[in-house]
């Protein structure tokens, strides 16, 4: 009983007190174990295993690059179109993975949820971290491609990339929290989320340049830019794509909206607010989770 505090010194507390997301990060060891198991379990029983998390975005990339870039001719509208697509795809895929896997996370872990007392926010958060883990190698591929085309890192670009990742981390976690509980009550939500994520891919300037939106919907771009994922994609393009073009400053001026970093900061702030709301809703519904699983 060496590591143990004497009983009398401990207070009488509600056994279910979990402190939500704060409780999750105060138990980092447990979180690490859950993330590790999630990584090994996501493609359980498949021969290629973890490789699937790279095959999936890469196959999407080739479809977009070939169909949109070569056949439809988007490639002529943006210099280094492949990098334009891939920079966006990384962040979109991060979001979609977090949203999809996070929505299913509590139902998938019901064996644990029903029998062990732990902060249930663990599962959506772990899903987000697993998706973040998969971003790493994709970023390396992107960096290599950028360096080959003559890109050099700049501090504003770094800030933009961090903002983009931050937006998706917070927004993805808040949506994962909300929809993982919703999915406990009605399993319809996981199907609905798959459909929703389809829209995300086309609602961001990934397979088409932002200029196209600015031209066609002049005066209404604010609505388009209110989508935080669109901002995150533009930030990624500021971080990686513009630097690979012949005249980065001119490309940024033409192809990116004004005040991009400010927009990014606002989107990040909004995502944090979303997370707080998601946490409040989650705490209210959490009570009913074990009996409904």
């Amino acid at each position, binding site marked *: *009983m060496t*590591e*143990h505090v004497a*009983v*009398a010194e*401990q*207070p*009488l*507390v*509600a*056994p*279910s*007190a979990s402190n939500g997301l704060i409780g999750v990060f105060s*138990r980092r*060891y*447990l979180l690490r*174990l*859950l993330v590790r*198991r999630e990584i090994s*379990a996501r493609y*359980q029983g498949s021969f290629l295993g973890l490789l699937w998390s790279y095959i999936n975005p890469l196959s999407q990339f080739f479809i977009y690059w070939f169909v949109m870039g070569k056949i439809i001719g988007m490639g002529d509208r943006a210099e280094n179109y492949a990098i334009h697509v891939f920079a966006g795809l990384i962040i979109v895929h991060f979001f979609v993975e977090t949203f999809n896997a996070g929505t299913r996370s509590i139902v998938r*872990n019901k*064996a*644990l*949820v*029903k*029998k*062990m*007392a*732990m902060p249930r926010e663990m599962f959506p958060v772990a899903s987000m971290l697993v998706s973040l883990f998969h971003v790493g190698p994709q970023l390396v591929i992107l960096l290599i491609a950028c360096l080959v085309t003559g890109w050099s890192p700049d501090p504003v670009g770094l800030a933009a990339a961090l903002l983009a990742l931050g937006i998706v981390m917070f927004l993805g976690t808040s949506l994962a929290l909300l929809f993982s509980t919703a999915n406990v*009550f*009605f*399993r319809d939500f996981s199907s609905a989320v798959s459909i929703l994520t389809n829209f995300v891919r086309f609602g961001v300037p990934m397979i088409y340049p932002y200029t196209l939106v600015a031209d066609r919907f002049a005066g209404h771009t604010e609505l388009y830019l209110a989508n935080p994922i669109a901002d995150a994609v533009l930030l990624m393009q500021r971080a990686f794509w513009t630097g690979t073009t012949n005249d980065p400053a001119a490309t940024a001026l033409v192809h990116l909206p004004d005040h991009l970093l400010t927009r990014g900061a606002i989107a990040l702030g909004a995502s944090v607010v979303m997370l707080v709301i998601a946490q409040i809703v989650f705490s209210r519904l959490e*009570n009913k989770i*074990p*009996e*409904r699983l």
Partner: protein
Amino acid sequence: MGYPSDTSIVVEDVTKTFTLRYHRTFKQVSVALLKGRDLSDTFNALDHVSFTVKQGESIGLMGLNGSGKSTLLKLVNGIMKPDSGTVLTRGRIAGLIATGAGFHPQLTGRENVYLNAAVLGMSERETARKFDDIIEFAEIGRHLDAPVGNYSSGQFARLGFAVAVHVDSDIFLADEVLAVGDRPFKKKCMEKMQEIRDSGRTLFYVSHAAASVRKMCDRVIVLENGKVGFDGAVNAGIKYLKYEDENPDNDPDDMGDLDEELGADI
């Protein structure tokens, strides 16, 4: 809050309500609405339950199936929150809920031991230090690296029990742990639980076996349809429950003797 410092568990005026059927399809809901039928049907799994437990007491929780024992244990464990009333506990809680641990069927026994121990609040070092003891106790041999989904129900329960008893807890919950174990393992479990009891930890033991409750516990709480039917001395509690069993409309088999035998087994 005015509870003495040796109070281990407080359950005060706790009510937990369940809905009988949750998942309804769109079609069922619209038909029910058209015909003006009630959509939900609820019942109280626990109905204004109150009691306090002192540190080091060992409680035998008894009652018929469906009387709310597992729900009560889940509330004390913190898996569920009461709909009204308060549940308070002091110190770390470990134990088994509803015959078995929260194991992940796809993970191996080894991974599950680490995960389960982490959920129960053990650090990596602490788990590593106790790992050999846990495995030795569980006696699952080379199945350790197989997914627990392939375990027999006995192996599953053994591993769960082994992890739970090796946590330095202040409160130990045991829900029908002995239901699936074989005879030697039951004996081992009983010895281990006596050890836990003698070390001054609070023991909360759910069982239908009168003899083992008599051996293990110094107080019995009987639940009846979610209410506390009896709370007091062990023998009186068992007697109280037996009285229930001897109702003429109940099973003609003498359940009492069967219980005694199961207990005497150990």
